[in-house]
């Protein structure tokens, strides 16, 4: 089995930048807005999501191909995937509680919320819909995780600046955060066509 590295790079780049799950597809916005107050917890959340995405993609792909497809049970995809993702999130929670209680505290309610995080579910489902091979699926999940991580870190940086700004009364708090997120999302639209031009597809 030969691996097409160029295709893998394309998949990863497009998952991370061009089709960034948060800023281009508006999935997983809840932790994106909720945990981006300070850099430490946003980095932690970024890693946690990346880890869960990777695990979820590598576990759900075999389940889809070897269990659901062969038994004609594609309609159970969503239920089974959520079940698996929930388990993985619980696992991450237990591990974090043991090895990094401070990060566990700062992530707070957003960690259990990751159970139903649409970004994680979307990664696994789009892997199947795009007909990726196992390696492609894992790479795409890694790219998606990196994209989420990147979006979190950039947004936290911006928010740390806007926190010390003095906006008009009506913009204070959530409105300003949403506007910032919208502008950041516009900026990510600038990646449109980058892949095609870089790799000539």
């Amino acid at each position, binding site marked *: 089995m030969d691996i097409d590295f160029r295709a893998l790079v394309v998949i990863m780049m497009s998952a991370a930048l061009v089709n960034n799950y948060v800023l281009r597809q508006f999935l997983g916005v809840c932790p994106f807005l909720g945990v981006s107050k300070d850099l430490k917890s946003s980095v932690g959340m970024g890693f946690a999501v990346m880890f869960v995405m990777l695990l979820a993609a590598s576990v759900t792909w075999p389940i889809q191909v070897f269990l659901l497809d062969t038994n004609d*049970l594609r309609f159970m995809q969503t*239920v*089974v995937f959520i079940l698996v993702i929930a388990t993985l999130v619980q696992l991450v929670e237990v591990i974090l509680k043991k090895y990094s209680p401070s990060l566990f505290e700062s992530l707070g309610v957003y960690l259990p919320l990751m159970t139903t995080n649409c970004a994680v579910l979307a990664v696994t489902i789009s892997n199947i819909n795009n007909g990726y091979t196992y390696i492609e699926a894992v790479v795409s999940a890694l790219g998606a995780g990196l994209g989420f991580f990147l979006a979190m870190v950039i947004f936290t940086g911006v928010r740390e600046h806007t926190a010390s700004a003095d906006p008009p009364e009506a913009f204070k708090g959530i409105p300003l955060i949403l506007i910032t997120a919208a502008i950041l999302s516009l900026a990510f639209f600038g990646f449109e066509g980058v892949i095609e031009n870089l790799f000539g597809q």
Partner: protein
Amino acid sequence: METIITAILITGAIGFLCAAFLAIATKLMYVKTDARVEKLREILPGANCGACGFSSCESYANALVKDNAATNLCPPGGEKVYKEINEVLDKNSGAGLTKKTATVHCLGDCDEVKDKLNYDGINTCFAAKQLYGGQGACTYGCVGFGDCVPVCPSNAICIEKNLAKINPKKCNGCGLCLKVCPTKIISLENEPVDVAVLCKNKEKGAIVKDKCNKGCIACNLCVKACPEDAIEVEEYLAIIDYEKCNGCGKCIEVCIKKCILART
């Protein structure tokens, strides 16, 4: 029919595997918690009000055991919780319990304050405050939509004539109302405070006079009347220094706007 059975079997099997896997992982990763933390958490009121400065009762219990936090930080629990905490931790901090009570520093109800605009928007102080500071002419005063009422765990706040009033007997001193008040007119002071300036307006006297019948106009009468020099006027507003105040009430008598009151 066959499809249903395979669906149930396979989903069930995956679910069972996941559950077993998690059960093992939880067993392996079990974190030992101090028995005292559990006990303290049961003693604490469990309101998660945050008055102690920690995010929840649980984190306060943790801090008590691990970081040696002061045992007198839980105002809602009062004397009882304070004693029980000391019993569990087997120590006597000696600091004693200071009970705090919240006061609304505004007397501008709808009879006293002039209207500046006819607000017809969302009925919360937070929303009204965004629009030129609310309905009343005074932007330093109570907005009167009662954002503080639902957050109060002991139902001590009620709105009368568009003005928040706190019943000091019911107030447990958690300070939640301070956080939601968009105008920041509620303050938390130690219990033995007898007088308070119930105005926060920092505008010049003439402007205040025009807006509200009960506003501090910085006339300095209270400053002169105070035998302990405990009152000062800063930014056209009288401020009482509670370190010096002996509660004689002379300022209450001289205040021509009647905005210094004995706390009832």
